[in-house]
């Protein structure tokens, strides 16, 4: 945890880099036969949250991924990965579906934070995240969440109350953005680097705090060996979790210790 000032904020900036693999990159390289399923069945379909069915080493799983997009146009269309209430409710619907059909759930998290527009508030963004937390806390199938880039606060947690939470070595996970922290606490936007250090938001920090269970090395990131390694890890862990009769008790204990 002896990171220098530049390290922590550099990690945040790197995690935001648009050339990093996004949710859809993970879906198409880690799984086979992905079938996207749209809509929250209430008020719309949120393109910033991609969900559906896929096979992991042949086994059906439910996949939920925040998608940010790479190009400017894509990023705009995906609301820069800030998920709307409709996205969280689509995720909720697919989680319940996964439980019904005894499929494990894999989430890829990459959001600066939940949507914070006027419509997001009007459509109950807080309630949508809360509902997901309550659902995930009691979901009877294994859940693994991987923070692949930005792990922005409640918006990230809404997809990360899981049996295992993994984090890319270059990702960050934080209760608030370093910019927001610097502004609120010190009224000084220049103090972002200091804020980033104080918040303990790097992959090393999160692991040391017990918030995450594993760091995913970024060697060959975006290339086949990287995705192969991740597939292997996910497959192995889901098999273990799937056989665990105390899954829910352990998930409770995992978060109870904080």
């Amino acid at each position, binding site marked *: 945890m002896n990171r220098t000032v530049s390290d922590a904020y550099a990690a945040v900036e790197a995690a935001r880099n648009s050339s990093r693999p996004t949710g859809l990159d993970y879906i198409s390289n880690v799984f086979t036969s992905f079938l996207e399923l749209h809509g929250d069945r209430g008020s719309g379909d949120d393109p910033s949250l991609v969900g559906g069915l896929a096979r992991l080493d042949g086994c059906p799983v439910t996949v939920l991924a925040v998608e940010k997009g790479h190009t400017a146009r894509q990023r705009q269309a995906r609301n820069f990965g800030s998920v709307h209430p409709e996205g969280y409710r689509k995720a909720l619907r697919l989680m319940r579906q996964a439980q019904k059909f005894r499929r494990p759930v894999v989430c890829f998290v990459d959001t600066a934070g*939940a949507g*914070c*527009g*006027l419509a*997001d*508030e*009007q*459509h*109950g*963004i*807080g*309630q949508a*995240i*809360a*509902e997901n*937390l*309550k659902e995930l*806390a*009691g979901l009877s199938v294994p859940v693994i969440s991987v923070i692949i880039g930005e792990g922005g*606060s*409640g918006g990230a*947690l*809404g997809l990360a*109350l899981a049996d295992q939470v993994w984090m890319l070595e270059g990702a960050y*996970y*934080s*209760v*608030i953005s370093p910019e*927001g*922290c610097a502004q*609120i*606490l010190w009224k000084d936007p220049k103090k972002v680097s200091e804020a980033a250090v*104080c*918040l*303990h*938001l790097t992959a090393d*920090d*999160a692991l040391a*705090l017990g*918030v995450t269970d594993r760091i995913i090395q970024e060697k060959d990131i975006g290339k086949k060996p990287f995705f192969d390694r991740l597939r292997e890890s996910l497959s192995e862990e889901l098999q273990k979790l799937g056989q665990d009769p105390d899954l829910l008790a352990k*998930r*409770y204990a995992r*978060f*109870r210790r*904080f």
Partner: protein
Amino acid sequence: MALLHFLKPDNALEDGGRDRLPVQADAMEPELTCPECRKSTPVSLLQARYMVCPCGHHFRMNARQRIRMVTDANSFREEFEDVVGEDPLHFPGYPGKRESARAASGEKEAVICGTGTVGGVPCALFFMEPRFMMGSMGSAVGERITRIFELALERHLPVVGFTVSGGARMQEGLLSLMQMAKISAAVRRHSDAGLLYIAVLTDPTTGGVTASFAMEADIALAEPGATIGFAGRRIVEQTTGKRLPGDFQKAETVEQEGFIDRIVPRQQMKPLLTQLLAMHPAGGKRR
């Protein structure tokens, strides 16, 4: 006598519609000025009417005042007083901030939990404290609230909780974010046991508290005029580049949008809670 008679209201409507302020307020008595009607009212008078201005504006209320307002006399027993926060991340300025919060509020943490009866019904209760860092949720707040849900589950009690919070306590970093998950899991267990949870959202209920236990209740009530939302007004204005309407995130708006069951003025809060609790005879027993 004639003059006094003249000063008296001459009908019941007028009597009820106006507050009986003393003709000459004691200059020494502290007053609060209402942000709505701009009139000043002596604090002692406000306290006698649950901190509600004669115009109807609800001033913020501290946790102990709420305990007196809601629970039956002498029934409240505080729990988990020994659970207090630490400074796990050695965050600059945090210990000092917490000390001044303790001095300002007279409380050790931003929530008070306990058991008591409401209209004769035994309940587990929590009351968040606005004077303690605006009810911000750190590990101790999360631990106390989690424990009250666990205690309620064990003793088959309904939970009644009053929220007021600026959100997660950023000085505890990810550990405060994890409280949202920890409490939500405890709420879920309590709920799965068929037990009732009523949340009362008071001004302000925002951020991580809205995005977890404030919005996880079976019945969500709110006080008139309370700000209820996730992102702060400033953030939303920055995002949208537009000025927001005055009723943005007001309880009345949030009720219309479908996220609140009822808005309940303070004078009616205890009778309503009593009624709701009485309608859930199984909400406090194992099914």
